């Protein structure tokens, strides 16, 4: 009884500012965590959720990582920080043992120096000089808890996304923390993987661990929380029980994704979870009509101009990995694409779905020649692209990758967008096009001052989208564009894609979020066993 009502961790944050920055990443925010309870911190991309989580768990430390004013109280020990040199210094090992944090990128949790899952789990115990016998027992117990018992001898580098996330959680809980902070624990997991993590979280709460969920979606898991805290721009704007906050204006303004019954799933990246798929499947015809009706005008006007040249045409394209390099050892080449035909008219939005690993990204990489078909041909605006360098095809085909970070390399957002535009539009036209593209994705304010790497990941993707849109390509290819976007990001994405289609761009998006595809696309194709078929 007392244990359940006692507060284990209480944080009161005045401000936290990273070194070298003028604007605080966190403003006034307060949070209490009770043992055995699930608490959710909800906020859009760039709201400071991860910074808050890392600050609470000692990953970011006062003085070491930035300037912190405020206080942290753990189990009766209260530490005050004034941003002065004689502030208390956290012992990260001991603090994090009791308040553990699992980052969104689970791979960042791993030491990279351990050869097996078992040794990776034991890494934290080794550093605390736990006797070997106790270590063996703890590894076995933790592995069973996070469902990795069968994988103890595997190399962590070979784990799937869901297994990796469970390993990261295991690395945190093996030290038996009082509090566990999970940053977007369901991101980029499929339905089965998400269900395992959800069950694990429930088990931890049941065993008395206080769990803090950092999420940009008020989804089913967040709905189980006893308390919500809404974070906007590093400041807490609302808190209360889910019932109090669901549907409130504060939640609406925060950019948090709220699942809509029968519509888009709460997590865009886990759209193939049961509810969304089943709902959507039942209303298939209706949803399809809706989908066509909304962006229809763009397609309609182009359809009216009698014989329109296809923006993108794939004729009998086949592709297999390993087919071009026979000397490579391995099993016989796997046919990823098999006689694929696809025609996308200007102004048309086509979505391609399919399970993980069916070759959706492979298909996309054929559009601009990053991959070349083993048989068949790819035509862009009627021209065969065989033998044309990727960089040249890129003038007509804009491809947005899953990891926007790889596409960005300039020092400001504007320079990033301007890259290569002068050759296309001349010096005078380039800046106008760049600014228009930035405005279209809602990044105008950041143009001159912000380094692309300092943008939150959601906005990095939008910036990458802007760099592609600014070139006004005839074909726009998007690889899982919704992953990691908050509601504001999704809205900008949706508007930008519609606007591009209205200008006559042929859009192909690969997504495993079926609900989103229904809402946006004119046609949905499923890639299955190397074949495309309409659904």
């Amino acid at each position, binding site marked *: 009884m007392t244990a359940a009502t006692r507060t284990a961790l209480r944080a009161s944050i005045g401000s936290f500012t990273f070194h070298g920055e003028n604007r605080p990443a966190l403003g006034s925010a307060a949070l209490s965590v009770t043992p055995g309870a699930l608490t959710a911190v909800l906020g859009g991309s760039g709201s400071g959720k991860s910074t808050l989580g890392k600050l609470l768990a000692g990953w970011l430390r006062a003085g070491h990582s930035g300037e912190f004013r405020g206080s942290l109280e753990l189990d009766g020990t209260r530490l005050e920080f004034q941003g002065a040199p004689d502030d208390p210094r956290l012992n990260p090992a001991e603090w994090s043992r009791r308040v553990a944090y699992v980052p969104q990128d689970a791979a960042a949790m791993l030491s990279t120096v351990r050869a097996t899952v078992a040794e990776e789990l034991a890494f934290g115990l080794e550093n605390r000089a736990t006797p070997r016998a106790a270590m063996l027992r703890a590894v076995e117990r933790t592995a069973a808890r996070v469902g990795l018992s069968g994988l103890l001898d595997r190399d962590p580098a070979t784990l799937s996304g869901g297994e990796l996330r469970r390993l990261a959680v295991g690395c945190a809980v093996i030290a038996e923390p009082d509090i566990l902070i999970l940053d977007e624990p369901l991101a980029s997991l499929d339905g089965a993987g998400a269900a395992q993590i959800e069950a694990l979280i429930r088990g931890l709460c049941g065993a008395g661990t206080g769990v803090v969920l950092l999420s940009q979606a008020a989804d089913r898991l967040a709905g189980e929380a006893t308390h919500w805290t809404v974070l906007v721009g590093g400041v807490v704007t609302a808190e209360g029980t889910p019932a109090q906050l669901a549907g409130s204006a504060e939640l609406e303004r925060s950019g948090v994704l709220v699942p809509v019954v029968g519509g888009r799933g709460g997590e865009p990246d886990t759209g193939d979870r049961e509810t969304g798929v089943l709902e959507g499947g039942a209303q298939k015809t209706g949803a399809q009509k809706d989908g066509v009706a909304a962006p229809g005008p763009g397609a309609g006007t182009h359809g009216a101009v009698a014989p329109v040249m296809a923006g993108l045409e794939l004729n009998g394209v086949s592709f297999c990995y390993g087919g071009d390099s026979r000397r490579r050892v391995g099993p016989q080449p796997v046919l990823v694409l098999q006689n694929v035909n696809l025609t996308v008219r200007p102004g048309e939005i086509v979505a391609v779905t399919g399970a993980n690993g069916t070759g959706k990204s492979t298909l996309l990489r054929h559009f601009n020649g*990053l991959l070349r078909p083993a048989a068949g041909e790819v035509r862009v605006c009627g021209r065969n692209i065989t033998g044309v360098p990727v960089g040249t095809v890129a003038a007509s085909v804009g491809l947005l990758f899953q990891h926007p970070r790889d596409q960005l390399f300039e020092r400001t957002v504007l320079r990033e967008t301007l890259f290569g535009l002068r050759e296309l539009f001349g010096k005078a036209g380039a800046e106008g096009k760049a600014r228009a593209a930035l405005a279209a994705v809602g990044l105008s304010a950041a143009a001159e001052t912000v380094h692309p790497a300092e943008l939150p990941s959601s906005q990095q993707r939008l910036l990458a989208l802007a760099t592609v849109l600014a070139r006004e390509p005839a074909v726009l290819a998007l690889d899982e564009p919704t992953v990691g976007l908050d509601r504001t990001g999704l809205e900008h994405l949706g508007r930008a894609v519609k606007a591009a289609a209205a200008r006559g761009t042929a859009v192909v998006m690969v997504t495993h979020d079926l609900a989103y595809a229904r809402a946006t696309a004119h046609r949905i194709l499923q890639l299955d066993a190397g074949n495309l078929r309409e659904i």
Partner: protein
Amino acid sequence: MTRTHHLHPFTALTAAVGAAVVTTAAASWPLSAAVAVAAAILAVRGGVAGRVLSAAAVILVPLCLSLLVLHGLFFPEGHTVLAEWGPARVTAEGLEFALELGTRTTACVLVFLLFSFTVSVPDLLSALAARRIPPQFGFVLASTLTLLPAVAGRLDRIRQAQEARGMVVRGGLLSRMGTLRLQMVPLVLALMDDAGSRAQALDARGFGNAGPRTSYRDVADSTAQRRFRAAALVLTAAAVVARLVVSWPAGVTR
């Protein structure tokens, strides 16, 4: 393959260091050649001959060619002139010098490559930790080995992403340098970002702790191996001392 796995990493390391030092101290090309051949045979028996020999060839072929040309043609200290073209003189002493140094380096390179391609890195880390070598050293070694292949993949992703943004790699040096800069920036940035969060994770998991550590992995050792290591170390030290004693006066007076 199985045999090398039963060897304690330190036994293999001691053997490699001992062989290299004794070879250097002995300065006799027949011994160097014998050590090189022995290393090659062990590599074949260990099933790593292909990797060891190809890695060694990349290092040794340019070095040995360079030695041959340098000392074979230009060796002012040489007396026995075999042939002469203008400033270049082929001398017996020069050729012997090139042979001595070439075989010595070949022996050392093969011995060390044999060690690094047969040792189990996790075992080595565990053994280092057990000897209270700072864990930071093992971390740098193992983390580098994990990062290297990952970076190659990442660089490929960056190149693809940038080509998709209209980057065309042209022939000119300046253009290529420019392209290179654009590839390096995201690579360095991503690596440093990852490193930053890895540091936080490592600190959180107690990596920064001073004081003793334990090891989950158990590395088998034996009395015989311990004795072998002690003997090898004594032999190595003796070889070094002998060389220093023999050559010292010569070294100073000349």
